[in-house]
């Protein structure tokens, strides 16, 4: 039950090696570069975070276009994604809960 919390915290000081997504196909939205297109694989996080993300239509299998990833480009600021005609600013904390993979070419 407390798994998300430990995870969320350990990400604050950089991405841990132990996490299987590193270098693999699945990674958090936080690390998706500007201009890329990704597919949502899983949504992590506590219930209130989870529900808010799903309410905006970011569900498993949803395709996201990253308009701007300020985290990678500047080290601060939100990630702007576009999905099904809607633009969403995702804070860095939230973005670390959304697991994505690159679209198959």
């Amino acid at each position, binding site marked *: 039950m407390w798994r998300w919390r430990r995870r969320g915290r350990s990400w604050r000081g950089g991405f841990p090696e132990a996490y299987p997504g590193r270098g693999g196909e699945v990674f958090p939205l936080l690390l998706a570069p500007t201009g890329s297109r990704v597919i949502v694989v899983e949504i992590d996080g506590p219930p209130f975070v989870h529900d*808010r993300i799903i309410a905006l239509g970011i569900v498993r299998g949803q395709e996201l276009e990253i308009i701007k990833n300020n985290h990678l480009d500047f080290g601060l*600021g939100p990630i702007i994604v576009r999905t099904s005609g*809607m633009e969403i*600013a995702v804070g860095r904390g939230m973005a670390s809960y959304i697991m994505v993979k690159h679209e198959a070419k």
Partner: protein
Amino acid sequence: MRQNRGPKGNKVHESPRLLQRIAEREKNCGLRIAIIGSPNVGKSVLYNILTGGKASIANWPGSTVEYHVGELKHPGGKGICLIDLPGTYSLLPTSPEEEVTRDYLIYQKPEYIMVLLDALSPEKSLAIVIQAIEAFPGRVFIVVTKSQLAHAHGVHIDFAGLSKLLGVPVIPVSALENIGLRDLKEFITKLREEKPQFEPKLRIKYGILEDIIGRITNEDVVKVFSNKTGADSRWLVLNMLSGDKHLFYDASLLIGKEKAETLGELIVKATEEFKKIYGRNPSDLIIEHRFALLRKIVSRTVVRYERGAGESFIDRLFHNPIIGPLLSLAILLATFFIAFSINTGFPLNIILDKAGFPGLAGFIETHSLSGLLSYAFGLLGESAKNFFGGAIGSLIGDGIINGVGFVLSFLPLILIVFLIIAVLEDTGLVARMSYSFHHVLEPFGLSGKSLFPLMMGIGCNVPAVLSTRALTETERKRALFAVPFIPCQARLAVIIAFTAAFFHNPLVQSLAVLALYMIGFLAAILTTLLLSVFYSKRRGEPRKIELLLEVPPLHKPSWRVVWWYVKENSSHFLKKAGTIIFFMSIITWFLTVYGPHGFTSDASGSLAAILGRKLSFALKPLGLGEEESWKLTFALLEGLVAKEVVLGSLAVIEGLPQSAGSSILQHYVLTGSQVFSFLVIVTIYMPCIATLAAMVGELRDVKKPLLYLVYSILLAFILGYLSYFILSFIL
């Protein structure tokens, strides 16, 4: 088996059996509210939140196959049952599920019917709303779901206008973002207490069909059927004319086979007759008329915008984490500068004054909106006072007219500020400012959305408190308690008068003003920090507010949408805060003109002055003399009404006209550090009545604002003493 089937061959016998099961479950229900709406409207989500139940949320149409009956989860919600009915696009059933919904409404006759309207696609979900109002007038109210999301999709809905047009209450909610839910729950609990009958204004004229409808509606059979079902007889006739054969089956169950047959004959005959004369099917006509009305409602209350492709130039600016926040600040300060100049002349009057045009500055100040209003009410109050004379004259002149004038003098400011918010909000700029500013406010336990209320606080705390409504519940409490520390224009007037009177170097003056603003903002941030660290931890709320914000398409403001926003919010302010401000100003009037020996025109003998003397120990640590300390305490007490009164009340004690300005202060002997620490106290010590009233109205709670009052007074005096201590060392 055949006799158990309805005319269409559906297994309708299942409905009555289900209904029986439901009736057993409803034994303890004092008030039943049926929830209906089109599929995917968000019914299950809302139902689960309202009842605290744990049904799953599925994503395909008609996810609710069975009935759900649950009790409202809210204090005072015991005995209020919510009935979640299967989703349906129409009350003219086409599937067994939709039959169940319709049957429930006419067999069980719930006291109220909550119809859900999808804010994302109002066109699709309005049909059921219209039919429900036609069928059960007086018992239907509308809840708009996903209202928060609509803006992100470029959809604007005028909720107040919709309510007025249809004549039924409309409550916008956003279930997952926890917005409007409390309003809805309170509305429902109120329903049980008051049992109001709504008066829908909706009445569709069916043109050439009216003749037949009127004739059949007057038949006794229809009236009996209407009484049995609780549905409007006109709607029953319409549905039967539309070809709802299942309704005859219901009729045979409810009013007996014989009467049902006569009813059937009547309808069939009328339909044949109509077809012969006009060559058209009545059901087509009915649908056409309903859709014509639907289109009319949508065109009047809904505005839509489409999003352009790609990243626009403005978006690119806001996406930059350094240019974005600066641009946001610039836009906010510029718009507030214009608004406040129109309203009170500030800060244009001060700039002109300093630039060497004192005449022009004075002109702007007296010809601003609130200047003109206060002049008018001053004259009115004065003449009323002279006309009646004595205590009654004072009550009417100083108490009532002043109180009304005070509420009204807020109105232009509130209107202008709401106009600015509406324009910024409608164009989609607020969302962009919010996310670009998020990382600046994040460490203090706020999200970027709080930028707006905080900046607005510089103008006036009252609309700032009201504008926290857009925030989530957790963040809102933090922002709500931070906003009153931001020095507003009223406090600026006091600050400027004092600094002008006691500091003669303009550089020192401006430094002092700047320092006071910094202290105000620091107090605000300190409060949010304290709340986010201690209060939230106890309640299990997150310390940091995560940002997840829908960004609406950028477009030119639509004046219709702006007007809806301004109208709704300012009337809300007048109703809620206005009454409290009015009564509080009468109480303060009483305290100022009544002494221990009854009515007195000498302010220094009044109850307030006595209270000031009693409380003057609070200012003793500043090293003030006996005389100064009680007078300043008295001024602080009076400042509760509005911070600018601090100055005016000093004038009253000295027997000078209120417009004397900083020359009032010439009678006082104060050192620089005393003046500064007094100003720190004035800035922070408590929100004015109007702000406090707005806080009470917004929190719907008296305890928290009162607790906050104590906190702010303590904080003010601690900071005041501290600054006196530090300054007397330095100077």
